């Protein structure tokens, strides 16, 4: 599990942020995404990109809260590129393609009753990012990586 953050080539300023996220902690859910958004504003990332990044970060954080015991939301920001990584210790995803479909959800009823877990999370992340990859190990955890480039 290596964390490649600085791209090869010209040395560029980059910022690494990491926030722990606890499973089922709905009271502080969204805080990590909020902090990332604030950092993006302070950097001066264009609004349209912040808008997308905010949704990606929030959905990725909520995935951990809903499905996993715990995890980490990480952001790596360099000029023109935002990488958001949500890594968790959770049940993992057996069929990633199915999980990507809009409306598909494995969230239990009590969570859906709270208005979460409608099965839009992963598809929202995909819609808002330039590139997205999911690596999952059933029974161990999931790592979602979303990259927003071209700004």
């Amino acid at each position, binding site marked *: 599990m290596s964390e490649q953050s600085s791209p090869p080539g010209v040395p560029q*300023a980059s910022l690494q942020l990491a926030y722990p996220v606890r499973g089922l902690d709905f009271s502080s859910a969204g805080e990590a995404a909020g902090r990332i958004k604030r*950092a993006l504003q*302070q950097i*001066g990332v264009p609004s349209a990109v912040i808008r997308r990044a905010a*949704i990606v970060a929030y959905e990725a954080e909520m995935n951990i809260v809903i499905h996993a015991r715990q995890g980490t939301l990480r952001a790596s920001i360099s000029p023109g590129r935002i990488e958001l990584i949500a890594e968790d210790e959770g049940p993992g995803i057996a069929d990633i393609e199915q999980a990507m479909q809009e409306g598909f959800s494995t969230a239990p009823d009590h969570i859906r009753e709270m208005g979460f877990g409608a099965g839009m999370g992963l598809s929202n992340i995909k819609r808002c990012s330039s590139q997205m990859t999911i690596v999952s190990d059933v029974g161990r955890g999931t790592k979602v990586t979303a990259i927003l480039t071209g700004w």
Partner: protein
Amino acid sequence: MVQYFHSVKLDREACKGCTNCIKRCPTEAIRVREGKAVILEERCIDCGECIRICPNHAKSALTDPFTRLGDFAHRIALPAPSFYGQFRPETPPEAFLQALLKIGFDDVYEVPYAAEAVSQAIRRYMEEHRYRRPLISSACPAVVRLLQVRFPELLEQVIPVESPMEVAAYLAKDKASADLGLEKKKIGAFFISPCAAKVTAVKQPVGRAESNVDGAFAMAAVYGEVLKHLGRGSAKRPPRRIRAGGLGIGWGRAGGENVAIGKGSLLAVDGIHSVIAVLEEVEKGRLHDVDYLEAQACIGGCIGGPLAVENPFVARVRMKNLSEQSGQKGFQFSADELANWYDQGLLTMSKKVAARPVMQLDKDLQQAITMTGTLERTVGELPGLDCGSCGSPSCRTLAEDIVRGVAFETDCVFKLRDRVQVLAQEVLELARKVPPAMGQKGPNANQGQGGASGQSPPGAVDGSPSGGQGR
């Protein structure tokens, strides 16, 4: 750098530097420096939170003086919908509107009347534009400015329909000019304002180049004048009929705008901190099911404005009763009239609302990234108590101020104490370094003495009353 007009002003003499206001400000626009509050102009949104919270009345709203009426040949009062909630039930609207004519105005044009046209325009805009949802109301200027500063990515959802105040001013002048054959520039339209934000919207509008309104008076000041003239003497003119219906008057309280729009999935939120919480939901993409968001900076809506007089809860019931008496069924103008105004662009903004990128640390992206990194590290080193003693509203803002080069780490009282402690320790150590010639035995001679090292004599600290001492 853009020059900002602000209605919210500080009275330096009255300010005691108590830091109450810095913590309440929704855009972190206030610092305390050298014992006095300082407002960061580019961040202030004129919401008036600091006016309400200041225990020393050091914050106030700058409004126009009544002498401004003298600049015009024909003066029209534009009472805000919230004005209707300021009077006792014994005083019908006819009476207080009539009283306006005795205090220097030549005519009254009711803003709630224009609010009805605006409600219809919102409805039409919503039907014609099925873009991203929810659309966000543009009626409260403090909320629009909040979006410019803190939620620039949501600006494209702000509905470009003009505020009832602007529409009222335009229609009032148009009518007066036609009726009296006067040039428009000789006609003055004056808003009776519940807040600082509206004053700023008159002096520096965001959705158009210039406001149709010529000045704004504080509702509290007008109220005082009106009271003096209520029911006194005979009016020169026959009593005024009120034109505004219940739906327009309702705009003065939270939820009233939505009632007047009346169609779709409508959400209303009031109080600037609650507005922020809801906007954060919009930002996360969680409110797709809502068509329209009515958002007002003041708790209770405009009747809760800092320049209103009546208790907002009392005002709310007055407005409700009045609203019902005036009829809630329909609007007071014809569909043709409305379509005409809409098509002429009278009801919509002529300028896009632009972002105010005040959060950015540096124009250069690389530099800003490096600074943000330093900021994050600095936050980690601060105690995280958000006590405000440093003059910045939170540890994070102090870190931001440090990174921007306008504050020091030692502005934090805890950091300062740590530093003093280290310094004191060093001084103490130096003091103990008595030269050997003066009889010092060795470098460790002082250890174990002086109590500070925690090696107290047995029994002295553990407080056991009996035993232990029987040696």
